[in-house]
């Protein structure tokens, strides 16, 4: 059997678990998972790969919506990172729900960010333009696997 050049699949899972630090890292207060939040952004906002942290610029506003968005819910925010094949993945444990809000200016993105680590951004997920009037916005998570999980490292 020959050697093969590869990044260890276990490493990818460990990255999601915050095990490795190739540069200056942070002092963790505990070994528990961080807490995360989800903020909505207007269609006119410019959140993307170059964004680094939560910002109020371009965020939705309206009745029932608190700046910064909502906490991810569940006993933990994310399903414990796992792997399948050579892909590591994790997904939020529950749907993200904004209850009884009125958001009349169109929005089409949600930023998930780490509220434990200085609101650093995890990812921005887009969807078709929406408004909500005295209603509920529910964002249901994809299947947690190597091909559709919310956060994947392949």
């Amino acid at each position, binding site marked *: 059997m020959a050697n093969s050049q590869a990044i260890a699949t276990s490493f990818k899972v460990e990255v999601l678990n915050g095990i490795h630090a190739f540069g200056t890292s942070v002092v963790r207060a505990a070994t528990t998972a961080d807490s995360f939040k989800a903020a909505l952004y207007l269609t006119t906002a410019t959140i993307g790969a170059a964004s680094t942290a939560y910002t109020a610029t371009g965020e939705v506003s309206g009745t029932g919506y608190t700046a910064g968005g909502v906490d991810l819910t569940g006993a933990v925010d994310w399903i414990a990172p796992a792997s399948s094949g050579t892909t590591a993945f994790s997904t939020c444990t529950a749907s993200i729900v904004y209850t009884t809000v009125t958001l009349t200016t169109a929005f089409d993105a949600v930023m998930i960010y780490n509220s434990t680590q200085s609101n650093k951004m995890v990812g921005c997920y887009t969807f078709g333009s929406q408004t909500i009037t005295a209603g509920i916005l529910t*964002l249901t998570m994809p299947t947690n696997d190597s091909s559709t999980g919310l956060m994947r490292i392949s």
Partner: protein
Amino acid sequence: MVTTIYGDMDEAMLEKKTGVVDNDNEHTTWVEYWLKGELVHRSAHVALKKGLSALCETASLGG
């Protein structure tokens, strides 16, 4: 009862509209309630079909 901008209202008093958006990224359903031409309630359920993927690549040594 339906929660509206005027408080809870009997659904029978309102005109109901629904819609579906389905593509590679999402399956979304929405419901609207209208009162005499005014939108008084809109909710949406966005089911994301897939998340984001980052690609790790190794470099060859001594390339």
